[in-house]
């Protein structure tokens, strides 16, 4: 009788190509992810069906926290240094090189200009513990307007985005919007999250 020989193959498969691919993807995603810098406030954004993506650069973000505290952020290290110089000139405050550098590396910031020098001279760990009171933006003392004006003169390509918390009270948002309109910023972006399918 002719015996049929069953071919025996190893049960372990060669995983090398799969590993190659996996590591390729890992490196790709590692290099493309940009970790968001640590923000001093947590903003839970509202959702919308809008599909316009926010550009990555030339953005001025005005964040509004749940408690109605207004924060300011602009991207670009060198632009920030220039901006601080301009603001210092207007308010008559001199900043040391060290303070300018720490301002250029800061993310969102929400302290009145009078306290900014003191705030910048703190160590980063200390800064986290400080409860930031927010940038004044009411009609009596509107520092936000100055920040917006000088940011725009520093970087004319700047787009202005409002990043508000879902539960922020409208009057605060209204103050910010009125400030922007007063300074002839009629077009701005509201940052939202993607609407989850409902």
């Amino acid at each position: 009788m002719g015996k049929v020989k069953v071919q025996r193959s190893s049960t372990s498969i060669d995983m090398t190509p799969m590993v190659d691919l996996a590591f390729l993807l890992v490196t790709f995603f590692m290099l493309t992810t940009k970790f968001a810098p640590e923000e001093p406030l947590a903003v839970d954004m509202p959702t919308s069906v809008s599909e316009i993506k926010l550009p990555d650069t030339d953005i001025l973000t005005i964040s509004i926290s749940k408690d109605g505290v207004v924060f300011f952020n602009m991207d670009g290290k060198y632009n920030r240094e220039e901006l601080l110089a301009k603001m210092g000139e207007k308010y008559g405050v001199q900043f040391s090189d060290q303070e300018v550098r720490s301002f250029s590396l800061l993310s969102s910031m929400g302290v009145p200009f009078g306290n900014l020098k003191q705030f910048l001279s703190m160590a980063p760990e200390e800064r986290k513990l400080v409860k930031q009171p927010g940038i004044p933006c009411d009609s009596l003392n509107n520092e936000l307007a100055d920040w917006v004006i000088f940011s725009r003169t520093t970087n004319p390509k700047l787009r202005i985005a409002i990043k508000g918390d879902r539960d922020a009270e409208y009057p605060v948002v209204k103050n910010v919007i009125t400030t922007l309109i007063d300074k002839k910023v009629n077009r701005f972006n509201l940052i939202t999250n993607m609407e989850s399918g409902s």
Partner: protein
Amino acid sequence: MAEISQGSGKKDGKVRSKKTSTRIDMTPMVDLAFLLLTFFVMTTTLNKPQTMEITMPEKPKVEDKQPLVNEKRVLTLVLGGEDKVYWYLGITDPKVELSNFSNDGIRKVLLQQNAQIKEMVVLIKPSDQSKYKNVVDILDEMNISNIARFALVDITPVDKELIKDSQL
């Protein structure tokens, strides 16, 4: 001695080189690779903020004339607290009705009125009790219902009275 004796069966003292396969077990490495992969995939896709572009009208100058609109074409939405929306048509003796942000709420109203009224103008008046979320939601509804003419306006004392009187 710090040596670990391996079995006591060796009597001849010959060192036997152990034959091991040249293949190493890659499973733990693959596990790790995929773990990292899923982590980075998750973090990148979830981190894309959307934006809603709005253009506000320029601040009117004193000598500017404001365009007049027929009151029959005006739908006013007042955003109240607790996610309420009050709406009424026209200005003279309006009938205030209550709605909400659900699918059958204000969207239905907007679509209905938009079909009935030609060139409808929507005035959005967020009250002081409303949240930022409500404003974004209602702007979103404008987008969804394809309403081109809308404006974000400050609430007036008249509106506040109307809402109060409606007892809704």
